[in-house]
């Protein structure tokens, strides 16, 4: 009984929608576009957040930096021994990394010394982004200007393209000797010191001990970084949504207007339905199904297009707004990542307001008097 009634009414709703193809297509395209924008922003921020967390997963649990005058300074390698004495701290290592401004590309590259023996002296390994902007192939030579003005070339041994491009794109791996030469860095110092901790519960105790022993250092925990990232990305994504809420508002007004501005033909039809035995709640039901069909179809198409836009076309539409490193990431590709929660949030942002905006107009349409057909 109940199910047949729904079936019959859905049947009629679909045929009504098809009869007014042009009007409904216009509505669906606008609706779809709104969903497309929202979905793109969401997919983009989530995917970036995800990438960041992939990177951070590999990041050291604790980083120790030397501070001088409130600024980050090179840290003496002698500190490593002192930290090693603390119980629970292990694999304590110095790291060498820095930024190099390349005048040819007009961009900053990240230079890093990997573990011993990974890059031999005179050679480098570069990320995809670097190879792209400098048109480098393997065995090509890349020129660097050292801090004393001397220009020297290093041979590209490898171009790497690992899982996530976000970090590796601008990365150049370099040998320790070349690194020290390039930046004029003396032996016995490192950029910072990293370590891991056997028992995560002891993290803060160990951090405290290091701070006591080496009062001129700053200690950064991975957990803190994660939190900061989370905040930054949420904030950015949220800001984008707030900006987009103008669009949403416009769309809500548009759909309200659409739903209340019934054409004479539609009024006549609803009047006929009422006159031949449809009840107000039957018409409301019909309007509900109409809204559902429109919402669901717009939603799926919009989400699908946004997925293509973000993960296959690298979000050409608002990359500059969200990312901020315009030069180095022209072909930045994100790992496809979406989850149910995102889709649900998206749904709440678009379909719920649409539904809310059409309740009252639907009711108005449904309460057309049945005898109106006899009075005209």
């Amino acid at each position, binding site marked *: 009984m109940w199910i047949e009634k729904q079936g*019959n009414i859905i049947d009629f709703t679909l045929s009504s929608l098809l009869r007014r193809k042009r009007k409904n297509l216009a509505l669906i395209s606008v609706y779809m576009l709104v969903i497309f924008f929202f979905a793109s922003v969401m997919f983009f921020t989530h995917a970036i957040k995800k990438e960041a967390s992939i990177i951070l997963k590999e990041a050291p649990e604790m980083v120790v930096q030397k501070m001088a005058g409130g600024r980050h300074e090179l840290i003496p390698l002698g500190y490593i021994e002192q930290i090693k004495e603390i119980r629970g701290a292990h694999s304590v290592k110095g790291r060498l990394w820095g930024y190099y401004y390349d005048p040819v590309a007009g961009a900053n590259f990240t230079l890093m010394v990997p573990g011993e023996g990974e890059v031999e002296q005179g050679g480098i390994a570069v990320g995809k982004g670097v190879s792209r902007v400098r048109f480098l192939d393997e065995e090509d030579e890349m020129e660097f200007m050292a801090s004393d003005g001397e220009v020297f070339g290093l041979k590209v041994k490898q171009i790497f393209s690992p899982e996530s491009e976000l970090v590796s794109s601008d990365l150049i791996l370099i040998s320790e000797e070349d690194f020290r030469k390039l930046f004029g860095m003396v032996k016995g110092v490192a950029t910072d010191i990293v370590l891991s901790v056997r028992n995560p519960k002891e993290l803060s105790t160990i951090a405290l001990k290091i701070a006591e022993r080496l009062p001129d250092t700053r200690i950064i925990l991975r957990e803190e970084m994660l939190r900061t990232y989370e905040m930054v990305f949420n904030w950015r994504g949220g800001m984008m949504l707030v900006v987009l809420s103008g669009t949403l508002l416009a769309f809500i007004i548009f759909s309200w207007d659409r739903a209340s501005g019934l054409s004479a033909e539609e009024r006549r039809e609803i009047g006929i339905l009422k006159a031949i*035995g449809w009840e107000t709640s*039957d018409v409301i039901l019909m309007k509900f199904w109409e809204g559902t069909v429109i919402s669901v179809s717009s939603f799926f198409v919009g989400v699908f297009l946004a997925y293509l836009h973000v993960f296959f076309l690298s979000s050409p539409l608002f990359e500059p707004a969200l990312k901020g490193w315009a030069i180095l990431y022209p072909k930045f590709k994100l790992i496809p990542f979406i989850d149910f929660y995102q889709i649900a949030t998206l749904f709440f942002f678009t379909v719920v307001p649409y539904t809310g905006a059409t309740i009252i107009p639907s009711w108005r349409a449904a309460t057309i008097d049945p*005898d109106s057909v*006899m009075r005209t």
Partner: protein
Amino acid sequence: MNMIQLLNIRKVFNMGRPNEFTAIHGVSLSIHPHQVTALKGPSGSGKTTLLSILGCMARPTSGRIMLFDREITSLPERFLTEIRRKTFGFVFQQFHLIKGITVLENVMLPAYPGGEGYGALRKRAMEILDLLSLSKKASSRVEWLSGGEAQRTAIARALINRPSVMIADEPTGHLDSRLSQEFMQIMGRLKQDRKTILIASHDPIVHESETVDRVIEMRDGRII
């Protein structure tokens, strides 16, 4: 037993406003079953309003309505609609078919909210179309029908819920004499099937038809 009984019905539009006007002034009336009753009168005489009250489409401002001796005056709309759907079939002045869908769909439309299975419903609709020799047109769109076919489609639609009362508002208003005669013939057939029929019309073809058992004349919202 009376089919429908009206007691002192008044219908006022735009009450309390400057353009207030009274369409029906205290009408009392009984409709007898299995008869054809015609409401006669010039336009603006309140025929259509009275017809909509008789057919449970509109509620009177005051007065009482009894259907099969049951008071239905202030029933909520959802009850009234159900009674209307089951008891009355309507044919309107311009037929008011829904464009863009087929004859068959138009005929089935009044039964959709009843929650009947699609198959059974379709079968019944086809039988009715057959009876009115429209089965060949079942899948054509209503825009392509001739005047006579559109009229019979409207009658078929009115019959789909097996009503005991047929209500027609100026059914011959847009028809030529031949089709008007044909309409009255169909009404005659329905009368033989023991349907009660109510027609509002100012067309002499209707009033003078031998099918009609009773003519009620109206003027200025009163029965004369």
